[in-house]
């Protein structure tokens, strides 16, 4: 059966790939290696950058050895994100640069003798192909039918391009597949979203409550550092997790909660704090709205009730609530990061927000601070054309409170459907491996099948590239300029990214790609600067700096315009909510027809012989992006499935054994996964780290290693409020009698 678009394993060998002579071998059999000598001599020969491995964007320095090859990356001591210390992914960023499996040249899909494959192309050919297609799609269906998925710095330029063409459809999977529910929840409660990095004053907190956060395995650099500072100062950590996470190992209280019942615990805490009058009375009086409604709402949600739901002892629930209150206002109930679990996630995060509000931590030291960003001028360009249609105009009732384009929404709307008269016809995907990112892979593939254009921009041949019509190889962050980092923090701070080396092979920066496409599509006016350097220098001069200065210092910190990191006592604060106050009772949700206060709902439990699939992070990897990085695969090259010893005994499993996993819908993992029998996981769940089980043969280090949790997430629990895709409603069982097979080519 001829399919529109087959998955192709990248099969090009590097034609014209110039292997930098220094890449890889720089060792000498002498007392001090070249690299070590270089360390001493090169302290002045370093270039600034900010990391692109995850989204934290820590600023650092790239050092080169005597041969001029990139040697190592360290943190910039002035940077507030990392305080001079990079995390293992950032330190291992050199591996991204030296990875021989990188995309090396533009590729275009061709059909030869009934078989689809890629052929190498020049940049001109690739751009011509793309621009022709885009012009055709715009003419036939309107530019709004083209969507951009992005995760990474390149997104800015393709966003400009798309908006210039007249499409507002820019989706970041990090919204509905990750942090979206908490953005809506905090927006509804406090009138603002949390963004990245979250404005958490962890280093001064006295009590850190981690419910749905596995900080320590989740390597949010600044937060892990501050958690360590807090431990030094004697802060209490309360961890709620069905798994004994690293954070649980450092906690005074670990609440081994039954999965899917967190909302009950939160409501019980709210109940205790209200009934024992442990809340910050003055704060609640002055800044919040709806306290009486809340009190009435939670009156039956006692710890005893919660005990029956969560299996957490009511005494412990009370004790931990009092612990939080004693520490208040220097207490943080951490909002988590990846919170798309069961479809009621916005409500669960509402409970988190309400709890923080009752404890008075918002705007107080040791709680949430008020972040400030530096403001950079935008290059002047003509106003963007107004789109004739947007997803919001086409689906006014869908996910009413989502204020950004949903990745899964775009995906769904790309699948042909007779009930809709519009659909997306073209996707540009930048730095996001949608195959592993979006749950319900079958749906994603159906959508891709129906597309007329799929352009993928990436540095590695990730699975999504196998479906592309055109692949544009981007150079890594170590080989390019990018926008000035202006992320929010305690003080406004900017950071420069400049190339430490010329792009390897035939790769190019995203800025150049977007600009070249803009030329061909007649929207070059939206890219007034010819090079990014010119733009950066112009922007920096506006801030009183310059490109030259930033190249020397890497980061520059400014003073806050106002001394308002925290609320001053008695300060009149206006919150951007309907009532102008912190809404314990959410008028926004009520207006949208949703529960104004969270309510616990029971979620399906695993059937007999199945176990809930829990997934998470390892501190040495980030998403699936680093699975092939040589330095990081040295640390961890495959994931394992954590199995409780009681379960292992039942199934006859032992540590080191390989098994296949099959979920409740009969979907089986493509590759087997190693078993780890451990007491750290509950008997009703299994746990595995996300980002493995890659099916691209050209990623030689990670191909076939471990299993992909994403492929087993077929049951998606949609959050009706903002369209978040809850992924924790999947259950797996073990297939033990299959031998590890080669995947058919």
């Amino acid at each position, binding site marked *: 059966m001829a399919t529109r678009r087959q998955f192709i394993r990248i099969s090009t060998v590097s034609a014209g790939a110039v292997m930098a002579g220094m890449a890889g071998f720089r060792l000498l059999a002498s007392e001090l290696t070249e690299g070590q000598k270089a360390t001493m001599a090169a302290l002045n020969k370093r270039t600034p950058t900010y990391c692109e491995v995850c989204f934290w964007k820590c600023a650092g320095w790239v050092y080169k050895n005597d041969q001029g090859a990139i040697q190592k990356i360290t943190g910039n001591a002035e940077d507030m994100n990392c305080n001079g210390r990079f995390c293992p992914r950032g330190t291992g960023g050199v591996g991204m640069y030296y990875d021989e499996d990188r995309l090396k040249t533009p590729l275009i899909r061709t059909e030869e003798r009934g078989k689809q494959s890629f052929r190498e192309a020049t940049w001109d050919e690739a751009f011509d192909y793309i621009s022709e297609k885009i012009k055709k799609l715009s003419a036939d269906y309107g530019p709004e039918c083209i969507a951009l998925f992005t995760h990474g710095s390149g997104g800015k330029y393709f966003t400009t391009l798309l908006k210039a063409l007249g499409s507002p459809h820019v989706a970041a999977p990090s919204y509905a597949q990750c942090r979206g529910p908490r953005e809506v929840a905090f927006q509804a409660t406090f009138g603002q979203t949390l963004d990245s990095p979250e404005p958490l004053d962890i280093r001064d907190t006295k009590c850190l409550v981690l419910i749905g956060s596995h900080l320590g395995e989740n390597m949010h650099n600044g937060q892990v550092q501050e958690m360590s500072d807090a431990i030094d100062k004697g802060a209490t950590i309360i961890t709620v997790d069905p798994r004994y996470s690293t954070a649980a190992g450092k906690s005074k209280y670990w609440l081994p909660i039954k999965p899917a019942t967190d909302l009950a615990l939160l409501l019980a805490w709210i109940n205790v704090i209200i009934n024992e009058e442990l809340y910050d009375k003055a704060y609640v009086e002055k800044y919040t709205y709806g306290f009486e409604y809340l009190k009435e709402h939670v009156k039956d949600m006692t710890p005893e009730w919660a005990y029956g739901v969560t299996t957490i002892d009511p005494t412990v629930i009370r004790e931990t609530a009092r612990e939080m209150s004693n520490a208040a206002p220097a207490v943080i109930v951490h909002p988590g990061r990846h919170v798309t679990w069961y479809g009621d996630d916005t409500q669960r995060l509402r409970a988190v927000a309400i709890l923080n509000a009752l404890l008075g931590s918002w705007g107080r030291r040791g709680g949430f601070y008020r972040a400030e960003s530096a403001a950079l001028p935008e290059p002047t360009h003509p106003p963007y054309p107004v789109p004739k249609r947007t997803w919001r105009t086409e689906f006014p009732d869908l996910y009413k409170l989502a204020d950004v384009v949903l990745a899964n929404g775009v995906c769904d709307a790309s699948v042909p459907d007779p009930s809709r008269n519009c659909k997306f016809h073209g996707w540009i995907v930048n730095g996001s491996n949608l195959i592993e990112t979006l749950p319900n892979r079958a749906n994603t593939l159906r959508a891709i099948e129906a597309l007329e254009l799929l352009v993928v921009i990436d540095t590695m041949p990730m699975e999504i590239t196998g479906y592309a019509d055109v692949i544009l190889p981007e150079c890594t962050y170590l080989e390019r300029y990018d926008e000035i980092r202006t992320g929010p923090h305690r003080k406004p701070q900017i950071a420069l990214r400049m190339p430490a080396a010329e792009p390897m092979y035939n790769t190019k920066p995203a800025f150049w790609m977007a600009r070249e496409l803009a030329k061909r599509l007649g929207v070059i006016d939206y890219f007034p600067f010819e090079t990014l350097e010119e733009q950066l220098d112009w922007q920096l001069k506006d801030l009183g700096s310059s490109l030259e200065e930033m190249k020397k210092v890497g980061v520059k910190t400014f003073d806050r315009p106002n001394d308002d990191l925290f609320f001053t006592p008695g300060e009149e604060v206006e919150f951007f909510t309907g009532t102008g106050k912190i809404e314990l009772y959410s008028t926004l949700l009520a207006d949208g027809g949703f529960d104004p206060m969270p309510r616990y709902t029971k979620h399906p439990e695993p059937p007999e012989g199945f176990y809930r699939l829990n997934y998470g992070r390892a501190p*040495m990897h980030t998403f699936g992006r680093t699975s092939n990085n040589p330095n990081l*695969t*040295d*640390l*961890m*090259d495959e994931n394992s499935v954590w199995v409780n*010893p009681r379960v292992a005994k039942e199934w006859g499993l032992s540590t080191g054994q390989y098994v296949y996993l099959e979920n409740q819908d009969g979907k089986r993992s493509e590759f087997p996964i190693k078993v780890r*029998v*451990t*007491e750290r996981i509950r008997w009703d769940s299994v746990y595995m780290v996300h980002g493995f089980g890659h099916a691209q043969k050209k990623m030689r280090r990670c191909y076939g290693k471990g299993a992909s949790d994403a492929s087993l997430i077929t049951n998606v629990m949609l959050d009706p409020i903002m369209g978040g895709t809850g992924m924790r409603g999947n259950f797996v069982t073990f297939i033990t009698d299959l031998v590890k097979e080669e995947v058919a080519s």
Partner: protein
Amino acid sequence: MNEELIVSGRDNLLIDPHLHIWHWPIALDLFLGGLSAGILFFAALFFILGKEGKYTAAVRKAPLIVPFLIVVCFMALFYDLRHKIFFWQLYTTIKFQSPMSWGAWTLTMTFAASVIWAVLHIRDQFPAFDWKYKWLNELENFFRKHKTVVAWIMMFLALILGVYTGILLAAFNARPLWNTSVLGPLFLTSGLAAAAATIMLAARDTEEISLFKKLTVVLLGVELFLIVHMFMGFLAGTQVQIEASELFLGGEYTMIFWIFVVFLGIIFPGILSVMSLRGYRIPVILPAALILLGGFLFRYVFVYAGQLSRWLY
């Protein structure tokens, strides 16, 4: 449940999952070293006891192969080195606390002694041998005049060499299986037994054969005793030593050790020798070959098993 695991993926070549840096070259070196030491010991001993005429195989024939055995030792050791071009650094210093330094020097000096001894007896095999150079003839005469001294030195060196093969391993307290003081005498005894077996093979005189058969039986008996003693020591030792000994008491090396090394390499040839002494016709090649094979296998098994025994992870 207790779990102890390395979470950063350590997988150093030859170190993980367990140490395996030494292979058959080291086992061969230990065996041939022990064998050479034994042969030279017997040669020197019986010469000093004035039995040169009586036990010709021991004193005059068998030692002729020793230089070649030691050359093979050197070749095996050199082959095993991973930074070969600097091998000469071994001879720039003597480190008295390093058994390997002892070994390097002792082996070299033993080689010299064995060459001298072989030279002194070369005319037993090649009567018309002539050096062609006057100074070499004079050198040979010099050594012939001081043959007793040479014998004493050779005996001394042979003993050190024989014991060194065991002490080398025993000095590594990081490998609990090896870290027993019984190993030195045990390998020495094993070397002597192998030497006795070789001499038994080489001998033509019935009295000599008979003597060495008796020596073989005694030495095998002592060896067996030492092995049993060694295991008793392990089992009465620390936790790591108990675990190390379990490799041979139910673990993966149990069969190969007790059946091939102990039974076929020690007990069975011992029985054969006793029977032979009692009058049964046993071709001498049988017990001799078994002892030699058993000796090599003993060291082979010990080198490999020792690298499995450890303190951590």
